[in-house]
């Protein structure tokens, strides 16, 4: 059927004025065949494999974006969790391997490479511990390497020994990158129930159930949804849901088409489409502003959770019909520093840390890109992680913590991370101690929800 004039106009408006874009095409690459008792050989294999499989990623994605007139913002790589190939490597060698990944990303002109990761939700193996020991140095001595650590799942419960270590690691990373507003912490995500095919950074890694190489896509479009809603100021909430559903459908269809074309040209299987709405600092490209458009004076006020639940559900309903393979995190992201509406919510005192925690119960992921008081203790950071992990574990969903205790900054200060990472007002933490909880150690047992067989 021929495309109508108005439909063409609508599409052009979505791209030109409402920031419709493909946020990321992410190539997942298995490194499981790269293990080698000779560490130099291991490094060589890793570098060679990544730079071979992904050598045309950047150029092909740019070419497809040009032909279809839909921008692809980021091209990224996710690799197998590095802890699994470390073998008998030392801490210094593990840091060295992070630099190898960084080099590969630079050579390919890729802004982030994810998978400097370990899955330690039940226990910590030898390679895992080496990676944990190496993490603060690895994150502070590389630019583009992202790390994710799984500390809990619904099936296994919460590994509180791992949670305790993560608080220390985050604090140490903050200190090592103190001269850059503790930016190292922005490249580290702590997960409960991580997914193996997430294309979004910093949490992307190529899971053990994945194939040799795969291409997955994350679309974006808060601006498109916001503008669509603005055209229906008087719709009731059922109508609001419907508008979001239809818009999500269109955005996802565009993403799936482009993703499949890129995958086909690279001769790589298409993996999944991640339906997440991911904001940027561009004007009107904010998830918080969608919630405000639904009917809140400021994000964070009473009703925020209800509006977010409605929006997140509608995005999934619309998107799931538009794609053959939905996966990844697929929900709304609510990073603070990358969303102008969220920043304003905190500055105006409407949005607080407890409210942000509550929001993570009904949308994907968790406490994301939140700048905390630099004096927050490692135990407090661990306790924040434990709270988020508990939300994910009990509700059988992914939750994550990516917080940045900015050394030398206090609640009320503003910190600039620059570029994609944006800027954030510092949030204070609760001053009562959680030390005893963290010091007890051990595991929080898997909840009754895990017993589904």
């Amino acid at each position, binding site marked *: *059927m*021929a*495309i*109508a*004039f108005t*439909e*063409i*106009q*609508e*599409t*052009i408006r979505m791209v*030109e004025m409402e920031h419709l874009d493909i946020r990321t095409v992410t190539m997942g690459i298995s490194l499981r065949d790269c293990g080698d008792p000779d560490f130099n050989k291991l490094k060589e294999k890793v570098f060679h494999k990544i730079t071979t499989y992904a050598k045309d990623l950047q150029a092909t994605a740019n070419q497809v974006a*040009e*032909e*279809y*007139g*839909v921008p692809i913002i980021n091209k990224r790589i996710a690799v197998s969790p590095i802890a699994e190939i470390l073998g008998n490597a030392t801490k210094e060698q593990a840091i060295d391997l992070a630099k190898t990944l960084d080099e590969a990303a630079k050579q390919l002109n890729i802004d982030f490479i994810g998978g400097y990761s370990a899955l330690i939700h039940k226990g910590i193996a030898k390679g895992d511990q080496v990676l944990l020991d190496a993490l603060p140095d690895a994150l502070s001595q590389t630019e583009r390497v992202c790390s994710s650590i799984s500390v809990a799942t619904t099936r296994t419960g919460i590994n509180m020994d791992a949670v305790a270590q993560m608080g220390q690691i985050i604090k140490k990373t903050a200190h090592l990158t103190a001269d850059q507003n503790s930016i190292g912490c922005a490249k580290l995500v702590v997960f409960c129930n991580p997914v193996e095919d997430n294309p979004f950074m910093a949490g992307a890694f190529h899971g053990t159930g994945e194939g040799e190489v795969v291409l997955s896509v994350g679309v974006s479009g808060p601006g498109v949804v916001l503008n669509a809603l603005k055209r229906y100021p008087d719709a009731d909430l059922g109508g609001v849901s419907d508008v979001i559903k239809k818009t999500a459908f*269109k955005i996802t*269809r*565009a993403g*799936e*088409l*482009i993703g499949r074309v890129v995958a086909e040209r690279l001769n790589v299987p298409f993996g999944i489409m991640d339906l997440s709405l991911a904001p940027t600092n561009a004007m009107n490209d904010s998830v918080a502003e969608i919630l405000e458009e639904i009917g809140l004076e400021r994000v964070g006020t009473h009703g925020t959770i209800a509006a977010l639940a409605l929006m997140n559900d509608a995005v999934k309903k619309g998107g799931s019909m538009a794609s053959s393979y939905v996966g990844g995190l697929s929900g709304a992201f609510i990073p603070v520093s990358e969303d102008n509406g969220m920043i304003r919510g905190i500055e105006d005192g409407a949005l607080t840390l407890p409210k942000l925690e509550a929001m993570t119960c009904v949308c994907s992921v968790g406490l994301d890109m939140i700048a905390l008081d630099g004096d927050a203790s490692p135990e407090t950071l661990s306790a924040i992680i434990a709270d988020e992990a508990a939300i994910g574990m009990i509700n059988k969903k992914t939750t994550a913590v990516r917080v940045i205790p900015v050394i030398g900054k206090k609640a009320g200060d503003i910190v600039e991370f620059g570029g994609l990472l944006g800027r954030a007002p510092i949030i204070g933490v609760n001053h009562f101690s959680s030390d005893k909880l963290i010091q007890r150690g051990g595991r929080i047992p898997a909840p009754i929800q895990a017993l589904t067989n």
Partner: protein
Amino acid sequence: MQKRAVVSVVGKDQVGIIAKVTTILADNKVNISDISQTILQDFFTMIMIIDINDPNKLSELKQKFEPVEKDLGLKINIQLEDVFQAIHRV
């Protein structure tokens, strides 16, 4: 491979827009299979469907349009038609 692409032209209405844009297409032996145009509050919008054998030709055409875009203050986009089909047709 025969493909169709959508050329959209947006800008302030003035003499010679259609002539200049279609001349470039004709000079490059590109066939126009559909054309429609409207003016909304002084804003000229034209959308053409063209036949394309080689997707590489798109970037070539884009470059050729650049001087006209500058001269007349227009914004000209070319996109393969598939993207519209994907978004608007189930």
